[in-house]
């Protein structure tokens, strides 16, 4: 019997990827061709056995190395965040201290401004 189907059509049958028309043609051929039916069954079994074998397990040392690499950027981010928090805390302390000593600071500032202003008047006054 001539084979009106391509070998790849058997992959299409297994994966249910044939168009309705092609599927009908392949089914008709399979119904009358014992060789192709045997090939199809053999391919199905190969597919099922490979599937049943499942995934390989990655070596433990590879997993450990990659997890370490995966966590590294997160640690860096966490360190940067710590710096920002410390800097922010320091600025807050300075602000509170400045606020507490505001009257004294203000007096010193006024004294300096008075001195500067006096000096400026002294320079600009007509002789």
């Amino acid at each position, binding site marked *: 019997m001539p084979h009106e189907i391509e*070998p*790849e059509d*058997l*992959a*299409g049958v*297994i*994966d249910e*990827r044939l168009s309705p028309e092609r599927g009908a043609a392949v089914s008709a051929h399979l119904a009358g061709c014992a060789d192709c039916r045997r*090939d199809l069954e*053999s*391919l199905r*079994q*190969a*597919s099922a*056995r*490979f*599937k049943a*074998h*499942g*995934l*390989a*397990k*990655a*070596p*433990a040392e*590879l*997993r450990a*190395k*990659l*997890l370490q*690499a*995966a*966590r590294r*950027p*997160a640690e860096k981010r966490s360190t940067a965040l710590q710096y920002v928090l410390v800097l922010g805390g320091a600025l807050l302390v300075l602000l509170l201290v400045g606020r507490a000593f505001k009257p004294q600071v203000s007096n010193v500032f006024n004294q300096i401004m008075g001195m500067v202003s006096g000096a400026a008047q002294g320079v600009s006054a007509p002789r």
Partner: protein
Amino acid sequence: MTPDELVESYLDRAYTLCLRLAGNPADASDLAQDAMLRAIQALPGFRGESDPGTWLYRIAVNCWKNKAASAGERWRKGLASLDGAGPDAPAPDPPAPDPPIDRELERQEESAEIDRALADVAAEDRAALVLRELEDKSYEEIAAILEVPVGTVKSRLHRARAALARAWERSHAA
């Protein structure tokens, strides 16, 4: 998805693909490491529009292509490793502690049988088989990962399955 989750969820999957592309555990480890490190670096830019697995497998296939282009025949052929870890070499991975020893030995023998059966199949054919049978990827997804037309995917799947079928028929006949 965090880098940790990427490693935990996809390392075994990526390693399985790499094992079939590289053809031996030592090269598969190198390849999986390269691919995962690249994926970890690129993860902030991954917008999640596609399945993370599809994205990661594309990276792995590109890493393999780069190695094949620079390292030559050993990577293209896969199973014919220069350091002796060929199809007849025992799997170097230590057995997992959980399954009984008999089951583990059986599994290792089955794994070696699959390696031998796929020894003469092109690496891309083996990769197509992993993506279809173990990852349940569609022909279109496999075509996108391997950067080949959909028709080529069908041919590759057929060649890989036929090689497995022949090998198992031989081993049962013996």
